[in-house]
């Protein structure tokens, strides 16, 4: 008679399955044990960090609003956070190249200061109220975005070192999928927690405490990565010096024009960007749970759209896909003017999720198509700086407009400026063939 499988048999199978999934898949068994261990720690770091960010990205605006922030202050928060990212870009690159241990830059910066700021947000209502609390939240947000950006070059370089290039496609495919699922689940649960809490502030404190727990778990996992030994290299930072960046702008007209178009685009985008959640709560009377669900709808719509636009990008080229999606996206903020109840946002967010998936993919590929391998670090740095400056200016202006003229004014202005941005792209930037710079 066949014996029934024991509980320990199922447990062993579960453990084996989890070990394989967290290393990216069954293909990973052919990699050395040390590489597999790194892949697992990195996988759990990503999933936990994604869970933390689900709370922080979706609910921070609503939290500061509940603390009594004005719309201008919300704009100011986004604006200052973007500026801090620009200011810390060069120091981040210098640190990554000149400091031997990249892991500890990430653990101390994005994994340390950023996550302590999240703990600070969870504890803040115990110590501060009203305008004092609002100012501290803005300060924390600036610290979080600034230190995340400071750690980013070290994070990117370390990622490239620990994940073998031939396996990155499969590994990130698996990791990104689990991260997306975790992100959506946590967004949903956190929204319910805030909505059902005895008071909104208690709800936000609870979910931020949870975010801190996820974040510190992510830092713990990241700290366990075994970093390969390397020699600091100061020469690589030459790409980021102001002289080198200006030279890149002077020498490539297409890139310069692309940056100008993206500056106008992002300026327009951020006039309304920070205020959609505020509008949902104040004008549509949506609960935090509904805001979370509507944000998930947008993310879900983007998943199949990435595959669709990936194929379209290969056939049409990045220029045409950028143009097509860029011409439709300006309609999205205008549609918000006609919303009256929370569910009206659902079809808009589905449309927005689909279009943004295409635009994000195509515009990045277009940036690659006008770059060469040796100019890519400079072009990416310049692109980030121009986008962050435009974001800062747009969010600050959006805060002022919404305070004085109301939501329809920012939605309309944002749509028109996005249209101007894509018009500049169409008239000033030449199309390129769909080629990969590294092929």
């Amino acid at each position: 008679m066949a014996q029934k499988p024991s509980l320990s048999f199922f447990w062993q199978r579960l453990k084996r399955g989890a070990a394989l999934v967290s290393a990216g898949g069954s293909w990973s068994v052919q990699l050395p044990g040390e590489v597999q261990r790194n892949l697992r720690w990195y996988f759990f770091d990503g999933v936990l960090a994604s869970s933390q960010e689900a709370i922080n990205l979706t609910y921070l605006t609503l939290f500061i609003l509940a603390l009594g922030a004005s719309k201008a202050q919300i704009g100011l928060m986004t604006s200052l956070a973007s500026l801090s990212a620009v200011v810390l870009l060069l120091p981040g690159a210098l640190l990554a190249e000149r400091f031997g241990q990249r892991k500890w830059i990430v653990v101390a910066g994005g994994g340390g200061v950023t996550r302590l700021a999240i703990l600070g947000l969870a504890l803040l209502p115990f110590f501060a109220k009203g305008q004092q609390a609002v100012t501290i939240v803005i300060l924390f947000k600036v610290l979080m975005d600034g230190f995340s950006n400071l750690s980013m070059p070290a994070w990117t370089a370390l990622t490239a070192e620990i994940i073998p290039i031939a396996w990155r496609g499969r590994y990130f495919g698996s990791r990104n999928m689990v991260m997306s699922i975790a992100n959506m689940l946590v967004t949903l649960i956190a929204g319910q927690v805030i909505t059902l809490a005895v008071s909104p502030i208690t709800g936000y404190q609870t979910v931020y405490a949870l975010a801190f727990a996820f974040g510190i778990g992510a830092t713990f996992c990241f700290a366990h990565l075994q970093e390969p030994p390397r020699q600091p290299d100061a020469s690589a930072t030459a790409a980021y010096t102001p002289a080198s960046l200006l030279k890149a702008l002077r020498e490539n007209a297409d890139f310069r024009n692309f940056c100008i178009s993206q500056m106008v685009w992002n300026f327009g985008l951020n006039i309304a960007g920070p205020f959609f959640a505020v509008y949902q709560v104040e004008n549509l009377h949506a609960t935090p749970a509904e805001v979370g669900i509507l944000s998930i709808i947008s993310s879900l719509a983007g998943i199949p759209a990435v595959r669709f636009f990936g194929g379209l990008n290969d056939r049409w080229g990045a220029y045409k896909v950028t143009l097509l999606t860029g011409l439709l996206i300006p309609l999205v903020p205008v549609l918000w003017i006609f919303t009256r109840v929370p569910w009206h946002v659902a079809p808009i967010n589905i449309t927005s999720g689909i279009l943004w998936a295409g635009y994000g993919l195509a515009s990045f590929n277009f940036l690659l198509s006008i770059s060469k391998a040796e100019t890519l670090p400079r072009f990416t740095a310049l692109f980030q700086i121009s986008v962050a400056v435009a974001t800062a200016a747009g969010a600050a202006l959006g805060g002022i407009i919404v305070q004085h003229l109301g939501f329809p004014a920012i939605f309309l202005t944002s749509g028109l400026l996005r249209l101007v941005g894509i018009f500049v792209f169409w008239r000033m930037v030449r199309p390129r063939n769909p080629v990969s710079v590294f092929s």
Partner: protein
Amino acid sequence: MAQERHINDEQVDRLVVIILASEQVGELSNRLVKKGYRLTLVNTSSGFMQAGSTCLLVGINHGREDDLIGLIGSVCRTHRQFIPAGGTFSLPGGLPPLMIEAEVGSAYVFTLEVEQYEFF
């Protein structure tokens, strides 16, 4: 019709097993069929829910082996491209998504001797 008969009459003495990324199967199988190869497609899974791979079985006469290998090589070149890296941190809104360079597009090809081949 004449080409189909020619394929069926062909003395198959090699079995070529090709393992490649699912995204490339469409292009490769179209080109194989256009050039008169007969193939069997076996879906396999790899990675978690996303990066699938596919196994193609192609029976050929050894005289067409070089042509087939050349065709596979032209479609399934290893090349580098940027893929979303799903970062550990979030950056201010509007900044491009974190991307990382990855090698994609490779194929594994195994050629086996066929002891006997029948077509019914």
